[in-house]
């Protein structure tokens, strides 16, 4: 296994506040990697730095050996790194199918002339996009929801649609920000099963999650952030028994 994503000594400051402090971690190709930590530990900030929504103050982030820190989000997507959002950010007034088709944007080429003239290439590309988008909706279990407006979908369906939209960009690495937040146990099991199917398809997963049970059961390796610093990294078993983790994370949340 090779390192797909490596975060080297990344720091992120907002004014005087240090949100990330010298964070280093590596995600191997083909694994499910969990990122846990108490609220405000900097998990989403790290996601935003990785996916280009924030620049980094120091350090570097490499995807497959190529630097992606301080690059535009769309270039990072193009390199095969897609994400979802903690507070679902779908295009609410577009249909589910259209949402997924937007994800195809980066893998398709048709421009204004193609759009207006609808030449053979454009038609073929559009047909392939639609086919792929339908397949993805099917894959996440929304096969019959293609014509529904994204904003009208149930909460759990919206989470899954966001994953389908991200998958449409053909990512090698998919970052999911609290994908099972607010779901009931049955829905969580379905999602976990979806993640395993994704890995079987060769997608590496990076997961921010609060559900410790889900993370421990699913992830190959886990990193723990606290106050912007990585305090532990390793297999779920090893991290679970790490005293620093128990103090910082399990100590606060599990005891609460």
């Amino acid at each position: 296994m090779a390192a797909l994503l490596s975060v080297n000594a990344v720091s992120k400051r907002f004014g005087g506040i240090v949100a990330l402090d010298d964070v280093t971690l590596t995600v191997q190709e083909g694994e499910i990697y969990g990122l846990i930590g108490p609220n405000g530990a900097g998990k989403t900030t790290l996601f935003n730095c990785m996916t280009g929504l924030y620049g980094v103050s120091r350090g570097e982030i490499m995807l497959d050996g190529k630097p992606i820190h301080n690059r535009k989000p769309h270039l990072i997507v193009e390199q095969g790194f897609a994400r979802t959002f903690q507070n679902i950010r779908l295009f609410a007034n577009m249909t589910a199918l259209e949402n997924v088709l937007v994800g195809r944007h980066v893998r398709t080429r048709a421009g204004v002339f193609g759009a207006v003239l609808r030449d053979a290439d454009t038609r073929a590309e559009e047909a392939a996009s639609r086919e792929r988008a339908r397949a993805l909706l099917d894959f996440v279990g929304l096969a019959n929801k293609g014509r529904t407006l994204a904003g009208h979908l149930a909460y759990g369906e919206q989470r899954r649609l966001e994953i389908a939209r991200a998958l449409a960009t053909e990512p090698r690495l998919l970052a999911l920000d609290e994908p099972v937040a607010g779901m009931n146990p049955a829905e969580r099991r379905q999602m976990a099963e979806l993640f395993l199917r994704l890995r079987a398809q060769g997608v590496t997963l990076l997961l921010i999650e609060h559900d410790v049970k889900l993370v421990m059961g699913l992830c190959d390796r886990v990193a723990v952030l606290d106050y912007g610093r990585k305090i532990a990294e390793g297999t779920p078993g090893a991290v679970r028994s790490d005293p620093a983790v128990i103090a910082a994370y399990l100590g606060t949340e599990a005891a609460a």
Partner: protein
Amino acid sequence: MLEFLRRPRTRAQARAAIILLAVLLAVLPFLVEAGLSRSWVRVLDFALLYVILALGLNIVVGYAGLLDLGFVAFYALGAYLYAWLASPHFGLHLPFWAILPLGATLAGVFGVLLGAPTLRLRGDYLAIVTLGFGEIIRIFMNNLNAPVNITNGPQGINLIDPVTIAGISFGKTQQLFGITFSSAHFYYYLFLAFTLVTVFIAYRLQDSRIGRAWAAIREDEVAAAAMGINTRNIKLLAFAMGAVFGGVAGGLFAAFQGFISPESFTLWESILILCMIVLGGMGHIPGVILGAVLLTVLPEALRYLGDWQRAAVGEVVVDPGDLRMLLFGVALVLMMIYRPEGLIPSRQRKREFHAEDGVAAQEQASLYDSRA
């Protein structure tokens, strides 16, 4: 009839509707001339011109969600370019077909130039900055008559060549196939052709990879970027596309009028075009067409208010021309308060303006987030 056009039950019905519409459009100027007067044919021409302009601005405002209040600048550029290249002002008399692509390109380039610095701005700031650009261009048109006379200042440029196609000058009344065509008739068919092309392009763009990217940016710019859309380029593309339509319409306008001056390109013209879009239904092509036609024809119809006043009290108390803008203002306010989605809304916009289930679901989602 519109309902019938929108929801044809069978293929045959759809075909019949299209044929009916085509025949109607083909004979419309003659019907209007016979039923009203020749000056109404000119109103019809202007209605078509505004349909082109409104559909152009609709790409920027309706599709991509960028409120552009300086749209008239591109209209002006197209008009002035035509005037420079086809009038005694510089002694150039290039043919219509040669100038039009130049005007479209020039306007498109300016669309990108004016769009580029504004892309980082949020919606309302964008509106003011584009308005500023529009005003700057107008101030230059007004003043670039000295020391080198480029625009001829407030007097404007006169004696602009009419369009000539196949040796027929559109500038004068002529007999063709035993039918009398006035200048207004010729331009009607020319503008109709351009309008149909514009409508076609607008539909094709909307339902395409680019159109979806615009919609995504309108809905949530950050999410669009995170899904791999180069938001800067796609927004610039919207500006450029809108500007191209503005530039073409400007060229048509200059040829049709034979005279242009900065007066035709004030901020109010931009706002008028925006009103058309808002009134009809932002982002929705049939709505925008309806809005453009209504707002061109209604002010003309308002002229009858003068006659009524004369009949009622013996004199014109309020000049109906002065009432025009006042009523537009009232209409804008009322529309935004009572029917922000426009007269014929697209299904998306209706929901977008009446924040309901979709937003509620989003709020619910963020509720879950803060709890988790």
